[in-house]
């Protein structure tokens, strides 16, 4: 698949989450595992050692445990954690908890704004003086060269002036 055919999206957030208050987007999580099979060892360890800690820290998440005989352990039927260690399962659960709730897609840009331009869309009349409407051309006023920076000649002149002033002051002293 080429880059352009992979579905993409702009960065967004459910309900401006965090503007008012942050709400964890994970509502419920189902852990299915086997009580005896070796492949569920990590899941069983997680349930024994970390599950209560997790539920105490996240009272907003409903956890369902689903013992299924001789089946591979899964998180929400989507993530297979076959033969996974306890730490790995901790990471997957944390991943689910910190999801934004939006689908995972390739991002067009890593930032997004609803107002791309603060000062509005540019058009040829932006910052154009209305006095141009009644001016007659060629006009001396509008033909002048507009200097944005001080020229070297001017800089030297100013320097010379300053030196003169200092000399004058010294002579007075």
């Amino acid at each position, binding site marked *: 698949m080429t880059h352009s055919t992979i579905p993409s999206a702009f960065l967004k957030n459910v*309900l401006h989450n965090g503007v008012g208050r942050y709400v964890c987007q994970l509502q419920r999580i189902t852990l299915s595992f086997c009580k005896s099979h070796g492949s569920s060892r990590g899941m069983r360890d997680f349930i024994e050692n970390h599950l209560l800690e997790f539920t105490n820290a996240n009272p907003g998440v409903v956890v*369902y445990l689903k013992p299924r005989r001789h089946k591979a352990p899964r998180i929400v039927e989507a993530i297979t954690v076959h033969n996974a260690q306890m730490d790995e399962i901790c990471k997957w659960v944390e991943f689910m908890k910190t999801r934004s709730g939006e689908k995972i897609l390739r991002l067009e840009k890593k930032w997004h704004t609803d107002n791309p331009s603060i000062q509005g869309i540019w058009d040829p009349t932006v910052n154009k003086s*209305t006095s141009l409407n009644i001016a007659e051309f060629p006009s001396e006023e509008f033909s002048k060269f507009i200097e944005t920076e001080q020229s070297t000649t001017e800089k030297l002149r100013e320097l010379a002036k300053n030196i003169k002033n200092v000399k004058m002051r010294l002579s007075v002293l």
Partner: protein
Amino acid sequence: MATFRCFRTGMLVNSSILTCRNTISKQVVRNANKKPKWLSAYLKEQYNRRLAAGPEPERHPEKFGCWNYDCEIYAFGKRFGEEFNENLLKQAFMFSSYVENERARREDLDINLDTDNISIEDNEQLAIKGGEIAERYIKAFLRHSYPLLFEEGICAIQKYLMSDESLHYVASNLGFKDLIKTMEYPPEDDKYCTAFKAVVGALAESQSVQRAEVFVKDFVLPQLIGKDINEMWEVVNPMGLLNSLLTVLGRGAPEPRLLHQSASQTMMAVYHVGIYSDKELIGRSPGESVTIAEEMAAREALKHLMKTSDYRPPLPIGKQAENIKLDYEKKNISLEQLSQKLLQNSEQRITSGIS
């Protein structure tokens, strides 16, 4: 079974190919990997039946086995950091159709409805209460944020925020879908709206009206981010309104002037009109004809006077809004009051002219 056997023979043949390639004839391999004749017809029939049956109806998670309504209700409150009275919260999600059905079911089971501990009442009263709290708070907040906007504009923004569409969006993203108790699933759009108001009402009864107002502020008001509030209130005659507003403010009448024009004889014609009052530019806008540009410039000038221009500061939502003290009684000036003031002014002028 036939497929399985076929697959197995294929495996055997393949493995034997790897070990002693030269001894197996090509004929055997071809026959071994061949699919049975009936398989393609069978799969085709299955596919057509699936298409004819249509998509699966959306089912409640309860139907899949893992569901505990009490836990879900508990977690719902905790998710937002609010302490709900769980019975009130359950009531907030219950609709009359479900309640009637439940009552009939209990009667069938010969359960006495009067002595029954489990209350079943619908959310109508809670929704009315919550709706009133939300409306009062949103209006007061908007009046505080936009003190110069006309009362009609405030009402229009409030109506937008509390419209079925807007509240449906908020409620569906807050996980109301599976908790709402109606006879149909997924619930209809207006049910989300009622349930949201009822939850606000339940929060006010469980904790306090202030907490309910903070809930509204955190979840409803952010809907205004990135929206044009001036679009929500439709001004029919902007120039007339601008004229009367300037008269009441004691400023000169609005004077539209053509600032720039370009490509006037083409499809891409553009006119820039500026509106002056007392020789001061109060609004300017481009338009595809002079009349459109003039109207848009009048709207710009109104926005400027009501301090709702595009460059206005953002709404104080979140931590900034914690210390705001709202005056619920104060109202902004309405169009009616403006016209009354205008009448008074003209009467005064007439009487002073006669004397």
